[in-house]
């Protein structure tokens, strides 16, 4: 269930941490990245790999916002609606994305391309309003630039390109 790549990465981290459990969040982060969500099967595999009971894995997986517990679209569009973004028109952005994609926040488009989510502050308040697509930030947006972004992402997906993971080109982990 766990890919060799993930296992190698986590094994490489092991000497840096005094406990096995400390590797759980890095491991779930990698599972989330590889599969786009964290399934019960991957939680079981994570528990077996780190010698942790499933309950400990589940309680962590269900606590953190970035772990999606059901399948998501290929691009997770997360619009910040907290105060600074809201003051600068995040609600309009959310309405626009919702109309363009034909879904509400929390839903996935029928073609499986996009999931729309509303998120809280991502520390980008000086460049509000903003959103993230998968792992990349897009800042200083308005309705026009949002529509362009979504069109571009859709075209990139059609061309089998990976969207919103520009930082994955080199390993983030030590």
């Amino acid at each position: 269930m766990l890919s060799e790549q993930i296992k190698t990465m986590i094994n490489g981290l092991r000497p840096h941490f005094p406990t096995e459990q400390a590797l759980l969040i890095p491991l779930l982060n990698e599972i989330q990245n590889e599969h786009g969500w964290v399934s019960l099967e991957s939680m079981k595999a994570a528990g077996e790999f780190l010698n942790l009971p499933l309950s400990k894995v589940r309680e962590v997986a269900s606590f953190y916002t970035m772990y999606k517990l059901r399948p998501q679209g290929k691009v997770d569009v997360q619009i910040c609606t907290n105060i600074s973004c809201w003051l600068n028109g995040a609600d309009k952005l959310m309405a626009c994305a919702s109309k363009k994609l034909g879904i509400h926040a929390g839903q996935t488009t029928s073609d499986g391309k996009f999931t729309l989510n509303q998120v809280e502050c991502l520390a980008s308040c000086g460049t509000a309003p903003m959103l993230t697509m998968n792992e990349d930030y897009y800042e200083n947006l308005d309705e026009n630039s949002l529509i362009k972004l979504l069109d571009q992402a859709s075209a990139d997906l059609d061309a089998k390109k990976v969207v919103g993971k520009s930082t994955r080109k080199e390993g983030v982990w030590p």
Partner: protein
Amino acid sequence: MMYNNEHFEPVITPNVDKPGCETLDFYLKNENGYKGLEKALKMKAADVIEEVKKSNLRGRGGAGFPTGMKWSFMPANPVDANGNPKPKYLVCNADEGEPGTFKDRLIFTKTPHRMIEGMIIAGHAIGSAKGFVYIRGEWFKEARLMKKAIDDAYAKGFLGKNILGSGFNFDLVLYMGAGAYICGEETALLNSLEGKRGEPRLKPPFPAQVGAFGMPSCVNNVETFAAVPYIIDRGWEKYAKMGIERAGGTRMIGVSGHVNKPGVYELPMTLTINEIIEIAGGVKGGKLKAVIPGGASAPMLRADECGCKTDYDSLAKAGTMAGSGGLIVMNDTVNIVEATYTLLKFYEHESCGQCSQCREGSHWLARMFKRILDGGGTQDDLDYVSHICSNMAGQTICAFADAVTGPALSSVRKFRSEFEELIVNGGLKGLGRTESISHRTEGAHV
């Protein structure tokens, strides 16, 4: 001189607008990079702590606790039950998530070595050989940049074994969270670092006694660490003089909301809120109505209260707090009830759920504000807000519940007429608003 403060100079951001400022080469060539470390390693650990104490550096994460004092709480030679020495850990809190705060992200992307150098100096001061940088999970790019900076520092011998020939060893490990505001609370962060739910711990014991992995630990904010090299390199006096009596140095203020030039400004604490708004290009789209001076948890101030200075004590005297330096500006087109509801929704979502007062209280408050906006509010609701808040603040394991009451109470106290207007007229619709907030669907956070 600049900003009416003859002693002021930027401590952290003198060059953040220059290309290549994030590289080690730039830091070494133009910013006296790692000279503070060189100096610190020749000093006794206790003397380094003394320098930081005298500089009056206070924690930049929100609570404003004196940094030197925090370091001095670390036990000198901790041993376990069998008499074996315990490791001590240094932790950098880079879980920047307080709405309105975005200063640490600037340090990560523009001057990461300043923070790394500060951490190595702090490691020497508290006798720790290992540091963790806890980064919020959403910062993929920032983590990449920090990783590169750490690798470069290792390559030049600023990290690792026998640093600069001093015999001091220090390792720095990057750790990414997974999206939880509460992990900015230091004991929640420690739990998260241990691979657990980010639930704050009951104190005492404080992290200096029982911290990460049960070992004595010291947690500081990114900006706090980034100020340390300057203090050691240029001396505590210069740093202390820039500030005021009980708080030294500069503050990085993130100005956002309705201003013409939002961004992070490194400023002396002697400025007033009005002056800072001017520096950020003035209010856009209307007249000034309200300001949240220190991140979402700080009680808001009315426009007529914005002559207040922005140091810790002046803001506390004004009934609010300096917090994390996120200054959110609202113009007179904003409905305060709606703005506060935006924040309460956030708290409702981010409460870790351990304490009933906070878990239920944040939910009730959000629901009550929504009801008022939707036209179902009553006069009694306004008294009930105070009642709920008095059962939250100071009654829980961590300060999250207190944070919720900041915006909730201050909005009702300072803008009561706006609530009454909504109650009398049947909500936003009654005020002629056709667009409702209803598309912010319940349960949209997945």
